[in-house]
């Protein structure tokens, strides 16, 4: 056992782990989790995981009993995104396991390291359609980085070790371990491997010097270069390298939605977010650049609009990604580097020199001044964009903000300027409603001393609002900001613009009184309907030492602009009615 491990055990009062001691599969699992330095487990018990929950009883782990397995996995996901450490969740077999599916797919799409442990029926019952049996490894094949069905307790330590390694290295992602009940009950002498050997799995990719030279050469020739910095910057902890590289080469940086916070939104070279709801300058930069440098970004169709031929039409595309399958997947590239962005940039910085880009930078600056994000103010009517501005100004951009999915999500991405990595947490790839609130719980648990704000819609909040029980029970001081437009806003926007105002099934006027709902859980509830009320109420929320739900009653018929409609290209951008 390592020295750190022994220290950790001493610190946390964990009895020293004896190797060779006969223990059950359940106990083996928990010992492995201790050795992986896991502290928090988000989960929900049931028949097939009773042995594991029995071992948890009185153990060192801090287990958060959510009110739904979806809450557990999104909380584990929020914890992982806020820390970079793997999130861990446990669910029982059958319905417990299938309740994890949306959360697993969410983590897979956004490359979030998770270890999901499910129980299953005893092996003697597998395949018999036994009570609460589900083939969860089969169900989740397309949405996990890897998965295991444990047949023998003697394989369990190796599997757990591999699962954490796979989840956290290379392009991170969710790994599932399905443990049948007989394995959890079986006994074997405890062991834990000290290293992982997985043939054929490449965990880290340091690019060769030649590749880096080619990369630097392509970049240095550019006169109108732009960096497209994605979630890979945050996953690789490459924010410092990115900043040094951008400043040294004088290349402006566009942050993709997943990359927000990977480069300070307040920086002189920042062009913020591109794409469907991105800003004019970022999209013009892509349309006019002679070199687009993708760093840990996957050229998603919310940026290319799926029109990859018309995307960045004047540019050579240079692409660095840890996942070789991303290179050339969506767009045609001139130079590719299969490598971790951090080590690529670290090697590139000493070789790089400033580009001849000052004319380009001043052009972009002009656009930035001419076409900022903007909306029409309207007297006493509370505008949703104003709510986000209020959140930003009141926290000086220092809070961790999670969002749900919809208009409020896009407004948050637009109006809150993220300065730090891991401070913006949102379901980008899958666009999972119900994600925001439980993710905030995970983030707040990871950072008890920081302000964590969960911006949610009145629709998505109702998908997981039962987790108010958790914030109440554990006094988790998340500030929930409901941007309440009494409808499924984003759907309403599309119906207005593309379905001739035929508002089909978007009416949420029959929702609970959110203030009373919060109070029913023992959580402080507040409401605001005008800009003045919003300021006062929000100040009260921030000052309150505990969780708060604020119901911001905002204008209903507000649209997210700018907008590039589906099927259009980035140059067909609608700036909005103002």
């Amino acid at each position, binding site marked *: 056992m390592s020295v750190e491990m022994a220290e950790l055990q001493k610190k946390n009062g964990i009895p020293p782990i004896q190797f060779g001691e006969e223990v059950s599969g359940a106990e083996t699992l928990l010992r492995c989790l201790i050795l992986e330095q896991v502290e928090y487990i988000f989960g929900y018990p049931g028949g097939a995981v009773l042995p594991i929950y029995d071992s948890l009883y009185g153990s060192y782990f801090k287990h958060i009993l959510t009110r739904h397995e979806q809450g557990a996995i999104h909380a584990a996901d929020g914890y992982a995104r806020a820390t970079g450490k793997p999130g861990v969740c446990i669910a029982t077999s059958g319905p417990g396991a299938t309740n994890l599916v949306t959360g697993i797919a969410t983590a897979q799409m956004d490359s979030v390291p998770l270890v999901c442990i499910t129980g299953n029926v005893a092996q003697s019952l597998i395949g018999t359609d036994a009570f609460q049996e589900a083939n969860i490894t089969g169900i989740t094949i397309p949405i996990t980085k890897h998965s295991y069905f444990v047949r023998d307790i003697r394989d369990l330590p190796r599997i757990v070790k591999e699962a954490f390694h796979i989840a956290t290295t290379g392009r991170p992602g969710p790994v599932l371990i399905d443990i049948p009940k007989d394995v959890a009950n079986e006994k074997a002498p405890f062991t834990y491997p000290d290293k992982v050997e997985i043939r054929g*799995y490449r965990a880290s990719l340091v690019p060769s010097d030649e590749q880096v030279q080619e990369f630097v050469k392509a970049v240095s020739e550019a006169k109108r270069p732009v960096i497209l910095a994605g979630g890979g910057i945050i996953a690789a902890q490459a924010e410092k390298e990115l900043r040094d590289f951008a400043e040294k080469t004088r290349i402006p940086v566009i942050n993709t939605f997943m990359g927000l916070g990977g480069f300070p939104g307040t920086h002189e070279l920042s062009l913020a977010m591109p794409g469907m709801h991105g800003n004019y300058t970022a999209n013009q930069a892509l349309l006019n650049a002679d070199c687009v440098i993708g760093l840990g970004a996957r050229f998603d169709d919310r940026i290319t609009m799926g029109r990859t031929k018309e995307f960045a039409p004047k540019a050579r595309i240079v692409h660095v990604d840890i996942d070789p399958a991303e290179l050339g997947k969506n767009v045609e590239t001139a130079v590719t580097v299969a490598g971790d962005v951090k080590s690529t940039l670290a090697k590139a910085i000493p070789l790089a020199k400033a580009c001849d880009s000052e004319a380009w930078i001043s052009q972009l600056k002009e656009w930035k001044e001419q076409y900022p994000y903007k909306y029409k103010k309207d007297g006493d009517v509370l505008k949703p964009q104003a709510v986000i501005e209020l959140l930003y100004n009141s926290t000086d951009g220092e809070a961790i903000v999670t969002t749900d999915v919809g208009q409020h999500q896009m407004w948050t991405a637009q109006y809150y300027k993220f300065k730090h990595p891991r401070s913006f947490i949102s379901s980008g790839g899958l666009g999972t409603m119900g994600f925001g609130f439980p993710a905030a719980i995970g983030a707040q648990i990871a950072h008890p001393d920081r302000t964590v704000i969960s911006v949610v819609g009145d629709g998505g909040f109702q998908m997981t609002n039962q987790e108010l029980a958790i914030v109440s029970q554990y006094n988790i001081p998340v500030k929930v900001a409901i941007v309440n437009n009494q409808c499924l806003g984003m759907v309403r926007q599309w119906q207005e613009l593309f379905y001739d105002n035929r508002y089909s099934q978007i009416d949420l006027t029959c929702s609970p009184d959110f203030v009373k709902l919060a109070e029913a859980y023992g959580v402080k509830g507040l409401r605001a309907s005008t800009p003045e009320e919003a300021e006062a109420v929000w100040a009260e929320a921030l000052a309150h030492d505990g969780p708060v739900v604020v119901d911001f009653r905002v204008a209903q018929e507000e649209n997210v602009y700018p907008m590039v409609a589906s099927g259009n290209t980035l140059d067909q951008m609608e700036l909005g009615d103002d």
Partner: protein
Amino acid sequence: MQQHTISVLVNDQPGVLTRVATLFGQRGFNIDSITVGGTEEQGLSRMIISTGGDDRQINQLMKQLHKLIDVISVTNLSENPFVSRELALIKVTASPSQLAELNGIVEPFRAAIVDVGPSSLIVQVTGDTEKIDALLVLLQNYGVIELTRTGSVAMARSIVPATAAATV
């Protein structure tokens, strides 16, 4: 669209075939044929997969395959000379009196009659796809009652040093 033969070395574990097949479905590729069997090393299986696609698509497919944790190596055999064989069993309408005549047909193909019944017989043939197709055309004149054929098994020719083969 070009035809490609991909050789995939995988851990011999339950579920690996499902993972590979799922990947094809998920990424919109078609599997024209697939064979799986043992290898020179215990614990590993080799899959030979025939699929269609342009260079970009095949490149992407190979990279995606390589991302599967149970996949150890992926080689596009079509990039270099390779040997490929299929096996087919063909049941043909024929009486024993036609045996000699049919023998005359199958012999040039180095095929064999491996079963003779009162009104049908079974021809066994190995070879590349074209050869089997050619024999089938001839046998169709007699009436093919049943046909079963494997996908290809394939291997790079020895003249290509193993390291020169494209692997990802």
